[in-house]
């Protein structure tokens, strides 16, 4: 059991990687200015092309090339998105036209300007933003064509990995430490621990790598969507630099996009789904009507504004931190997750529920342990996971555990033990549920939260002293107090011991041995950043475990207040869903407590099966759209419960296995049964027409629903057991009538396809049904990409399926090799 590889990676790094892997380093960087005031005459500032701020290193590569051309020793300053040079207008670059920026900031005779223009802009104007997609498309087509030739894939993969290494190395060399910044510069350097990433990537086991890959793929998709948005922004350079031919619009990936009206509903729906993460504005390009009339100044201004907003949004997003977290299970196995800075513990738990098929009861928690301090703490569901983890030291042996912790919500299960603890135990034991409910109502549902009225003698050790001194403590909503010697217990005499704003409460393990505590029932309070022994930690020792739990819970109530109750409510709902799921899929659910060897053996396929899980969220949503095909045992109530809010709906919707199966139908059968119940025969072969109870959308004409065979197999391969009992994957696909060449139906189309011209006008997907809880909470990943209705018709475009496919190919290849 090694500790989790903790690394700080900004999403930019991740996106960069994926982009690079996909050969997208074609992107041009802008040389925005030559820093004249800086002591080093030739420091170039490479401004991130704002709309593609994620593509950090690409800029670097580009700049390197520029430097080579300019024949001067160039040093690179990377500006982090979010800050800008002093008083330098960013308008031009942000508005989508980098050329203008270059033009403005470089002296007319500068070699640089020439270089930039010669070298980069022709390329851009001729190749147009369509290029990456093409290139990308060809890669994946190649991949598709060579699925059977594993060697090729393997080679490709190692190739790519090699490139990644090169890239990271070069980045390591090139990044200039912040020290070199001139005082007038306002930029902060982007610090990404590439080496960390590298190391820990290698440290990870194969299974982990697989899981990670899936996450990357998800990111990739998000990036692509971004790209699409960017391109639309770029399509209308305002005002076009006089010297340059305006980027030919015909070459843009979605040439006819604007006029196509049916496209817009699709866009808006997807934006509905995808925006919960992004804080304010919709990241999507301005609606078509506006592009149609570019002449009007107002509209232009509006567009500009939109773009700028969009850009700002991206900049924000690019700053999101991500961690690769290894979570230890009860059985000693571990799961590796990519956790986004914005993800709450609840979302991570949901994620883990999906991966482990546990019973989802409210006790499941994420805990942190610190062997040095011998501490243990259950993360609260509303906390962000990344933040406390960032406080860990580099060399820490801390761990994150996924466990059932009864004490987490005990106060809501048996409030009387906390609020009426003075009463005799017997009368508390057989308390009526009604009375319990009343207690909760009184204490948690009023205008203010009432903390349990705790008072008692505990032994205290603080200020770095070695002795334990008894003190009479009192808990109040405002903090913990003690009664000073010789004073009464009246409020006015109390001395404040600690207020909870800046401290967390932790359980201490085996303090009797470590600190010679009177008993082993100890807890302590410390600032979350403190990771080692310190005089600032306040240790408390209770007489018995019961009073320790009372105090710790009481402090949590005082500290977190209402959120605690809300967390419980959410967890309870979750549990209800979970139990419904487990009930109907008991035979199939893989037991989390399977002996580890099996797990190990299984893990590759398991990873494969799990990772690309189509996000339940979108799936739910889709149920509204399509009459579900007959679920093997479709218990009607189930539909209501359906999927928990997906923590990471970003993932490419198509299960890679589905793709696999399309080319090698035998494969899934071989792989899957290890984990999942074999897909019911009916499902396997039958194109399931809407036999099931048409759920919501009667407007969806049943005859339209002709799922291509691959989908049904794909369905069988859907990882979470509940899925098996559920209707097939993203129905938008089912809308795709003409069963396209082998695979495309299941692929996540790259975003540009959203508005592809030839799309059969699909009815705008109705809003998600009310019953399943829509994914309300902002979920972690960079972007939520709803399974996009593939509207393309041409096979060539179909080949350009999302990276998901490609990645799954790779994964498959790797598995095979093993």
């Amino acid at each position, binding site marked *: 059991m090694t500790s989790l590889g903790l690394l700080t990676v900004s999403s930019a790094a991740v996106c960069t990687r994926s982009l690079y892997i996909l050969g997208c380093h074609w992107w041009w960087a802008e040389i925005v200015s030559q820093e004249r005031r800086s002591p080093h005459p030739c420091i170039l500032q490479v401004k991130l092309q704002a709309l593609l701020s994620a593509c950090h290193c690409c800029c670097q590569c580009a700049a390197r090339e520029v430097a080579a051309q300019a024949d001067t020793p160039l040093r690179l300053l990377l500006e982090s998105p*979010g*800050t800008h040079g002093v008083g330098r207008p*960013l308008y031009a670059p942000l508005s989508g036209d980098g050329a203008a920026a270059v033009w403005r900031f470089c002296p007319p005779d500068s070699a640089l300007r020439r270089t930039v223009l010669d070298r980069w802009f022709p390329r851009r104007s001729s190749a147009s933003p369509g290029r990456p997609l093409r290139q990308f498309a060809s890669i994946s087509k190649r991949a598709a064509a060579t699925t059977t030739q594993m060697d090729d894939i393997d080679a490709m993969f190692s190739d790519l990995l090699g490139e990644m290494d090169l890239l990271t190395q070069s980045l390591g060399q090139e990044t200039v430490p912040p020290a070199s910044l001139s*005082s007038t510069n*306002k930029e902060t350097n982007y610090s990404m621990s590439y080496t960390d990433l590298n190391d820990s990537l290698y440290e990870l086991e194969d299974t982990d790598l697989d899981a990670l890959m899936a996450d990357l793929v998800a990111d990739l998709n998000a990036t692509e969507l971004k790209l699409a948005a960017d391109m639309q922004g770029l399509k209308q350079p305002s005002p076009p630099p006089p010297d340059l031919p305006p980027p030919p619009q015909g070459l843009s990936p979605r040439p006819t996009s604007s006029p196509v009206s049916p496209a817009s509903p699709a866009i808006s729906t997807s934006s509905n789904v995808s925006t919960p993460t992004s804080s304010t504005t919709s990241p999507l390009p301005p609606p078509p009507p506006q592009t149609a009339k570019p002449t009007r100044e107002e509209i232009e201004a509006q567009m500009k504004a939109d773009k*700028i*907003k969009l850009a700002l949004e991206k900049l924000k997003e690019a700053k999101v931190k991500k961690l690769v977290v290894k979570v230890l299970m009860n059985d000693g196995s571990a799961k590796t997750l990519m956790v986004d800075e914005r993800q709450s513990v609840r979302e991570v738990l949901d994620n883990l529920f999906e991966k482990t098929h546990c019973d989802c009861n409210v006790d499941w928690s994420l805990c942190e342990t610190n062997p040095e301090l011998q501490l243990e703490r259950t993360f609260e569901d509303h906390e962000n996971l990344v933040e406390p983890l960032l406080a860990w030291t580099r060399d820490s042996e801390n761990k994150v555990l996924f466990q059932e912790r009864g004490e987490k919500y005990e106060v809501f299960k048996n409030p009387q033990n906390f609020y009426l603890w003075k009463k005799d135990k017997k009368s508390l034991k057989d308390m009526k549920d009604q009375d319990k409910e009343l207690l909760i109502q009184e204490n948690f549902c009023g*205008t203010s939260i009432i903390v349990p009225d705790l008072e008692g003698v505990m032994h205290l050790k603080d200020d770095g002293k070695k002795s334990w001194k008894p003190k009479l403590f009192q808990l109040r909503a405002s903090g913990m107090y003690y009664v000073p010697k010789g004073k009464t217990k009246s*409020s006015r005499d109390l001395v404040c011991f600690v207020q909870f704003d800046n401290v967390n409460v932790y359980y201490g393990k085996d303090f009797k041995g470590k600190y010679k505590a009177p008993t082993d029932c100890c807890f302590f309070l410390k600032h979350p950043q403190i990771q080692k022994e310190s005089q600032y930690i306040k240790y408390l020792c209770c007489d018995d475990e019961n009073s320790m739990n009372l105090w710790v819970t009481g402090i949590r109530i005082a500290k977190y207040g209402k959120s605690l109750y809300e967390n419980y409510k959410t967890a309870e709902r979750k549990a209800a869903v979970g139990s419904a799921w487990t009930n109907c899929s008991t035979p199939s659910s893989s037991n989390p407590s399977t002996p580890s060897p099996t797990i190990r053996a299984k893990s590759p396929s398991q990873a494969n099966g799990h990772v690309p899980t189509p996000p339940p969220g979108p799936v739910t949503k889709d149920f509204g759209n399509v009459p579900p095909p007959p679920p093997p045992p479709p218990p009607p109530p189930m539909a209501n419960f359906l999927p928990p809010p997906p923590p990471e709906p970003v993932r490419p919707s198509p299960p890679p296995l589905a793709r696999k199966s399309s080319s090698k139908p035998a494969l899934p059968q071989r792989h899957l049964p290890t984990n999942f119940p074999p897909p019911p025969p009916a499902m396997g072969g039958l194109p399931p027409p809407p036999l099931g109870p048409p759920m919501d959308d009667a407007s969806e004409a049943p005859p339209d629903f002709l799922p291509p065979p691959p989908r049904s197999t794909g369905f069988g391969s859907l990882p979470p057991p509940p899925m098996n009992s559920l209707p097939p994957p993203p129905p938008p696909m089912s809308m795709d009538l003409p069963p396209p060449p082998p695979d495309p139906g299941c692929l996540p189309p790259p975003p540009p396809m959203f508005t592809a011209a030839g799309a059969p006008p699909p009815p705008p997907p109705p809003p998600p049904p009310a019953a399943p809880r829509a994914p309300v909470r902002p979920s972690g990943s960079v972007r939520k990409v709803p399974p996009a209705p593939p509207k393309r018709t041409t096979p060539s475009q179909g080949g350009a399926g999302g990276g998901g496919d490609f990645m799954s190919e790779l994964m498959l290849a790797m598995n095979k090799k093993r």
Partner: protein
Amino acid sequence: MSAWDLLVTVEDLGSDAPPVTLSVASDLHVGGVILKLVEKTQIKRDWSDHALWWEQKQRWLLRTAWTLEKYGIHADARLVFMPQHKPLRLGLPNGNTLRLRACFSSSVFQTVMGVCRMLNIRHPEEHSFLRPVEEKKKKKDKDSAEEIYDLTEVPLSSASRPCLYNGMPAHFADSPQMEAIYKMLSVTQPPPAPEVITKQFRPASVVDKAHINGRWLDSSRCLMQQGIQENDRVWLRFKYFASYDIDPKYDVVRLTQLYEQARWAILLEDIDCTEEEMMLFGALQYHISKVSESEPQALSSSAAMDDLESALQSLEVKMEGESSSVSEMLENMTAPELNDYLKIFRPKRLTLKGYKQYWFKFQDTSISYFKSKEESIGEPIQQINLKGCEVAPDVNVTAQKFLIRLLIPAPEGMNEVYLRCENEQQYAQWMAGCRLASKGKSLADSSFQSEIQSIRSFLAMQKTSSGSHGNANANDESINPHSLVSPRYHKKYKAKQLTPRILDAYQNVAQLSLTDAVMRFLQIWQALPDFGLSYVVVRFKGSRKDEVLGIAPNRLIRIDLAVGDVVKTWRYNNMKQWNVNWDIRQVAIEFEGNINIAFACVTADCKIVHEFIGGYIFMSTRSRSKSDTLNEELFHKLTGGHEAL
């Protein structure tokens, strides 16, 4: 039937006028008596509000169809003919006095309802009238100086909810004077002068508090029956601390008055709190008074936002603001920073090193320092991230000491760093930066400027309070910190010692809106352990000493009078029944599990205790669905005692 003479005093004829003699028969009904009386006085006016009051029996003859015989009135009865609605001086929780027409003939419960309706206070059942504490009248001329807000001209309406105009009841919109009264009702009062607080009656013990509870008027009897005369003073107070369904949008007056009552309860130590809590209450009071000064209409305007249109309008404005601020957004992206020479000191070990000057740079959430300004291009000597750190001020304006104490968390523990600023301006900026950074906000945060402002105003506060007497310039927006805390702390701390402590607590609330701040104040008040307890001194059956019964919204507690410890707690939901033996004035309660208690009340009438218990049980029966209509009958059933039957 033979006729006999009935003497009726007509109040409107003056107190000296002799009673009017009517010749009546016993079968004459009360309406007939009034008719005869009016004819005899020969005064033409609206008599509709008048009724007969039977002085000896202390009852109104309101049933005009009843005959004199049925009422049992004989020739010796002294009747008074007078209006049912009379002016009453009403002390509000905020300390002001209103003069208004209240009903003297219906039960206090209904009178309170009428008053609350007039004042636009929802849920009148939580209120009642309290006989005022007699003020020690050392200087009798003091009383006349008191400002009285006159509401006697307001017509009485019977509509259950007054129609609103501009967010306030229509009768308040009539004239500027009326609007001023509404403003007094709906806007929090400025902090009182410290002398005012010290002069007020403060309960010194639980027994004192218990005595106050003996002053509640009986809800089921009318004012006349309880000896309240025209123009007498009563206090309107929240009696039941079960504030139900508070909505800042509709409860402007209610919320304000609840806040005022809570504030005075804190200031007068009616409810105990710790020093830290007191500082927070002080900070909130300071903030509330500041904000309500600057946006006096905030509370009432939110009520005016009722209609959709205005809401939409404000939305529009918001949208416009957003789109036009694109350039601002860009500006914001250029992260602001602070650069200056400051002095630093690390009180880590036993060092003799004093403060050392460096060039400091505050950027994002961290501080870095350099040897000099010139070297700030290079690598800083150290960079300190302030996220999650503790910031404490150490300021003495007169001594020109502006110190920021930082306690910065690190894996090994907390590091102490002191930053010394040269002047107020510098201090305010850097302090504000540190405050924000400790919460993870950068200087670009919108609250930066307001943070600077609040720090400066606190500095100003310290300046004036440390000045000679502070009275001269007390009016220019500075507040004496002693106005914000209870007299106990006047003795314990000097004003300038108090200021930093209040400022400290203020940091966490400075960003709250007026309504939020008021709500926060109430929440902290309600979270106090002793909140909602009304005390009565009782003697339990079988016990020889007096004890204290605390009546809370959900439970009864028995408190040892000598030690102050809670001896026992009984919850209402375990209560099976409670009875009052009106003859021996004893309350008997039976709880589940065969627990029976009985006690006699010492400091209050047992009717008051009975009403408290019944009242709280009534409060708990209110449910959201039928919140519009008050189940008055049930209330009387639960609180009325034998008179209700």
